[in-house]
């Protein structure tokens, strides 16, 4: 995949993420694996970095609308640090093929969740 195409997919990922309320990560990871040939682990690690600008912009905007519960976000965010350590250990321990397949299941599960959410009209 050409670099230009990867950038376009990145743009689309941001667009879809903004519209459907899923983080860019769900699209970044397969783009990096299938488009740039990264290993599943490197793609996931890089995706977390790629998410930051989008999450920042999104949070900034929501803050201005007054939608963010800062205290809750802080507690969840800080508590997540411990969870992150565990997640990294497991991700690094799993074979590439298993991690990739698990991610495939995640994508399908997310698709189901999106359709279900739209049915509920929210």
């Amino acid at each position, binding site marked *: 995949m050409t*670099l230009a195409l990867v*950038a376009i*997919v*990145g*743009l689309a*990922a*941001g*667009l879809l993420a*903004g*519209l*459907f*309320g899923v*983080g*860019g*990560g*769900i699209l*970044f*990871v397969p*783009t990096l694996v299938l488009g*740039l040939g*990264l290993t599943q682990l*490197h*793609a*996931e*690690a*890089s*995706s*977390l970095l*790629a*998410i*930051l600008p*989008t999450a920042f912009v999104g949070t900034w905007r*929501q803050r201005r609308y007054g*939608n*963010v*519960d800062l205290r*809750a*976000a802080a*507690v*969840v*965010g800080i*508590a*997540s*640090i411990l*969870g*992150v*350590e*565990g*997640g990294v250990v497991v*991700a*690094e321990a799993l074979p590439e093929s298993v991690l990739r397949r*698990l*991610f*495939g*299941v995640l*994508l399908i599960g*997310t*698709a189901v969740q*999106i359709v279900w959410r739209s049915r509920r009209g*929210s």
Partner: protein
Amino acid sequence: MSRLVGIGLLAGFFGALFGVGGGIVIVPLLVLGLSFEQRRASATSLAAILLASAAGAVTYALHGEVKPGAAAFVGIPAVAGVLVGAALQQRIPVQRLTIGFAVLLTAVGARLLV
């Protein structure tokens, strides 16, 4: 408070394991477990994700797993995408896009399963 901590632990683990923000875990738990209204849950989740993803990125970077150039290649255009999406939100047939998006996710998921 303890529920928020639990959500954070789960989201952090999930996010780092899959390289995603964790919103898929955080939003439903805020709505169902703490009676957050949907929009507030989504917004709060975004803020939490900022912290969780930063923690994940830093940890992975310390382990040498992050490719910053690759991250920039998808991450920076994505910011433009989010801003474009926000601007077009009123004009985009989101309902119709939903099925298409779900199909795309399923197709990519199936591709990774093979």
